[in-house]
């Protein structure tokens, strides 16, 4: 078995190397494309682009960055070797034998939540859209208060390895396991793809590693982590990464704060008074070509409404954040790694603090980047602002090309890399646990598999899931990261959360309710995202391109000689128009059918409704009778010891 696994991993890594050898040409093509598209994306970016003719790109020192990467890979592989020796039973593989302490688990959960999307994305949003980005980061923390108060302890007492175990507490029904497994895989895959696409793009931008190669590299490593080390290795990788991440965030924040004289009032005054910020708000966000008299564009940056303009969308997003965090299967799985409910409580308590500290620090990361780097430059590197933290680190270390700048940038890049690795490992573990434990062991084998077989199946499944992640990751290159994350959270909030809460607290809840809740919630969330503004609507792209064509042609007609950049933009717009004018979205729509980017406000109530209706339509006396047992167990933990050494 080991031989088989190692051969496959070897094959995958050889494939990676082979890919790495070929693509020098394609890299150039890619950076050329980004150089063309980036400055054209926002009007405000033009002056910056004009100043530096070189393509907008973060310049890393490859030798330093790659050795930092190697260092992180080396340390984590040592952890894997150590963990692999201790992973013998299915409980070891899925839950580290319940032997993680509350403190360790708290750090690991923090690591799971503070993904690269938060580390790079949230600070980027703040640097581009001001306080709206900060409102974003308050969502997860309330999600964890929900978990702390309502879910952590009952779940610890009720479950074993997976979400399926929790839902089956009142009867070992196969339909429940199937539904829970499918929903776990769906949520994990969307989340995984979001991380993977982000990671691939990041590597491409930072190190000139082609997208495919970086996806393969990350997957190969995560397969090694998960297949050999199981939950124990995944947990420790997560802990190491969380510590690195918080260190990096704290270091950057302190340096930013020192630059503003350690005075919070001066720090915010620096934001408001920054000419770059004012220009950015005026031209890029509010689209005022000339300043409106008496309007303070700097202060506007600290006022809400620049990013999510529709308040309903904000609330919908908030719902998905709060309930979705509580329905993410890879987080749920972490409750089973601690020995009892008390430790589960402690771990969430610790993670609330760590996470809260991190999200508060995003104020300094994001606004710091706005002050010292300028929103224009951040947007020129990457439209979503994902490069803000990295640029800030480079600046604080001493600037581009200096040793300090190179070192600090390399450190932060390596932290981002570790973050991605750790988060995808957790996701792959959750998805494979659902397939191996729920579908194979409990549905196909009726629970009659010995320890040896269970561990073997779990390892093979992780290998397959990891390999599948490579294929999907490469195929998803062009997908929108924000839409993928919105999907993962929406499915978790509308498919998983209602059935978990109802099965923990409602006596009459039963199999029919669980299955209909999961199915309707999941389908509703996916369906609404598919017809939402997150998708690409070619007719809209064509209309935008048409606008550029008209404006520029009008200029030409007036006798203005267009600069090379504008000519290129005109050509591109013409091509875009031709390509898109007859197209329609994936669902064959010309414009979004559902007006909000986040489906939560509709799909969460639908999930609850379907669960309740399904349950009432098929009453199940046995399930009701089992409620007392389950309820006493989840409140007291009686009978839980047997579940650990099962």
């Amino acid at each position, binding site marked *: 078995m080991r031989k088989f696994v190692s051969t496959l991993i070897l094959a995958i890594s050889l494939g990676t190397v082979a890919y790495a050898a070929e693509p020098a040409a394609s890299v150039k093509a890619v950076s050329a494309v980004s150089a063309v598209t980036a400055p054209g994306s926002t009007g405000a970016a033009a002056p910056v682009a004009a100043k530096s003719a070189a393509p907008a790109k973060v310049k890393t020192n490859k030798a330093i960055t790659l050795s930092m990467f190697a260092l992180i890979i080396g340390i984590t592989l040592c952890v894997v070797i150590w963990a692999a020796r201790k992973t013998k039973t299915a409980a070891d593989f899925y839950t580290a034998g319940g032997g993680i302490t509350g403190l360790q688990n708290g750090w690991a959960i923090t690591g799971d939540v503070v993904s690269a999307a938060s580390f790079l994305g949230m600070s980027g949003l703040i640097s581009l859209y001001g306080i709206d980005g900060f409102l974003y980061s308050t969502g997860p923390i*309330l999600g964890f*208060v929900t978990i702390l*108060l309502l879910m952590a302890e009952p779940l610890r007492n009720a479950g074993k390895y997976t979400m399926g175990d929790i839902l089956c507490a009142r009867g070992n029904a196969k339909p429940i396991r199937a539904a829970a497994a499918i929903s776990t895989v769906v949520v994990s895959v969307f989340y995984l793809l979001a991380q993977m696409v982000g990671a691939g793009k990041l590597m491409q931008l930072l190190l000139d590693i082609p997208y495919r190669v970086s996806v393969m590299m990350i997957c190969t490593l995560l397969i090694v982590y998960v297949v050999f080390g199981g939950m124990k290795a995944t947990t420790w990788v997560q802990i190491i990464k969380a510590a690195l991440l918080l260190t990096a965030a704290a270091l950057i924040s302190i340096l930013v704060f020192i630059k503003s004289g350690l005075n919070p009032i*001066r720090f915010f005054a620096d934001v408001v008074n920054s000419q770059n910020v004012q220009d950015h708000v005026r031209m890029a966000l509010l689209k005022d070509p000339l300043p409106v008299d008496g309007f303070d564009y700097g202060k506007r940056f600290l006022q809400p409404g620049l990013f999510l303009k529709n*308040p309903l969308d904000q609330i919908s997003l908030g719902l998905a954040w709060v309930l979705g965090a509580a329905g993410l299967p890879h987080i749920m799985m972490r409750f089973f790694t601690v020995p009892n409910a*008390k430790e589960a409580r402690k771990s969430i*308590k610790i993670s609330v603090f760590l996470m*809260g500290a991190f999200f508060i620090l995003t104020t300094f990361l994001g606004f710091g980047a706005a002050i010292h780097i300028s929103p224009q430059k951040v947007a020129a590197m990457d439209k979503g602002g994902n490069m803000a933290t990295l640029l800030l680190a480079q600046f604080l270390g001493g600037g581009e090309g200096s040793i300090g700048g190179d070192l600090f940038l390399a450190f932060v890049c390596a932290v981002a890399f570790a973050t991605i690795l750790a988060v995808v490992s957790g996701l792959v573990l959750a998805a494979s646990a659902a397939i191996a434990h729920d579908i194979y062991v409990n549905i196909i084998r009726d629970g009659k598999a010995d320890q040896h077989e269970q561990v073997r199946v779990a390892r093979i499944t992780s290998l397959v899931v990891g390999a599948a992640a490579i294929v999907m990751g490469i195929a998803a290159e062009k997908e929108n990261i924000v839409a993928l994350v919105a999907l993962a959270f929406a499915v978790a909030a509308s498919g998983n959360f209602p059935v978990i809460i109802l099965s923990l607290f409602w006596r009459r809840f039963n199999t029919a309710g669980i299955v209909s809740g999961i199915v309707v919630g999941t389908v509703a969330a996916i369906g609404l995202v598919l017809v939402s503004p997150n998708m690409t609507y070619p007719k809209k792209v064509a209309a935008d391109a048409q606008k550029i064509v008209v404006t520029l042609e009008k200029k030409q007609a007036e006798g203005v000689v267009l600069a090379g950049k504008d000519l290129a933009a005109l050509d591109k717009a013409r091509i875009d128009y031709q390509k898109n004018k007859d197209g329609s979205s994936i669902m064959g729509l010309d414009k979004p059918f559902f007006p909000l980017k986040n489906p939560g406000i509709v799909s969460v109530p639908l999930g609850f409704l379907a669960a309740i209706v399904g349950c009432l339509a098929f009453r199940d006396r046995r399930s009701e009778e089992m409620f*007392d047992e389950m309820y006493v167990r989840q409140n007291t*933990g009686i009978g839980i010891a047997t579940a650990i050494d099962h």
Partner: protein
Amino acid sequence: MAKEQYNWAEIAKSPAFVELHRRKKFFLYGWWAFSAGSYFLLLLGAGYTPGLFSIEVFGNINIGYLFALAQFVISFVIAVYYGRVADRDFDRLTRQLVEQIK
């Protein structure tokens, strides 16, 4: 897996369990409703009362930012407070209950 037989319905009706459950329910749902309420108030406020959120309190720091920051403070306070109450009351009641059953 040797399963001991308990009369679950009886335990669920026992005064000790009812008491534990009553206290927990009040505390947990109450604080959850409080924190969720303040969070959605933040989102509603950001969406519908931008004028209020723009009022500056310290220098350029406005109510909106302070309210968002307050979410973290509320979460920290709830986490600490719940930890204390659970360690002191809920765990003790649970232990008593488990001993009674045995």
